[in-house]
């Protein structure tokens, strides 16, 4: 098994763990964190390909990851702001109860 495959498997596993967290846990913050984990898994893939799979530009993968991290930061900021708003709205963070928009 080549290192690349290992990295990809690792990222796949990390991704699904994040998915499980996001799906199973009911606390909005944890859901958000799970999503962050998935993002990390994606970044991990970028670095893996950049390192073990000869690309064209030397720094593309790295720069992509940098951008991804920045975007993740923004996403987390907004997400947590949403969480706080949600908390102010309904006095808890149970996501399954935030169904005001049910059709």
């Amino acid at each position, binding site marked *: 098994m080549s290192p690349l495959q290992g990295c990809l498997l690792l990222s796949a596993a990390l991704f699904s763990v994040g998915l499980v967290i996001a799906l199973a846990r009911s606390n909005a913050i944890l859901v958000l964190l799970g999503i962050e984990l998935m993002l990390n898994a994606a970044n991990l893939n970028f670095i893996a390909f950049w390192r073990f*799979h000869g690309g064209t530009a030397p720094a593309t993968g790295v720069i992509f990851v940098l951008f991804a991290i920045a975007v993740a930061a923004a996403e987390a900021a907004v997400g947590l702001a949403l969480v706080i708003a949600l908390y102010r709205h309904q006095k808890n963070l149970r996501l399954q109860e935030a169904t005001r928009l049910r059709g």
Partner: protein
Amino acid sequence: MTFTFLILAVIILGSALAAALRPNLIHCALLLVVSWLGVAGFYLWAGAEFVAFAQVLVYVGALSMVVLFAVLLTRQSRAELRVDAPETRRAVWAVIAGVAVSGVIGTAVFATKWDSAPVTAPEITVRGIGLELMGAHAAALLLLGVLLTAALLGAVVLAAPDRPEKEEKS
């Protein structure tokens, strides 16, 4: 397949899994921080120092702080932190989905034929990254700045209470 990699993988996945199972919200958050640190370690191992330190700065330095803040701001009592265990039905579905996804990706990874020629680590310096950012990706960088500003303002607006006399937290 080096030893380091395996250790890192264990740290990353282990802490993440633990976070998935722990009932205590704070513990989950801290465990996830560990997992992020592991990812940073992975970047180091892969030779992307800059990314690694950026990851630490952003995730461990800033994101975890914000998360903990959110945790502390959105709890009435200490008991609140003990998140009720997920009801079984959702948990089962979640596990099924997770396993299915990882299985699919895993099969895809193995099914794909990679050119097995081991490639040498690409040589990058911080200077190189900087030049690349300021040159080819300058526009993207600017857009990113705009995005972050917008996100910051949006976060403030969202988290600010409707009543102005309370001061906003974000």
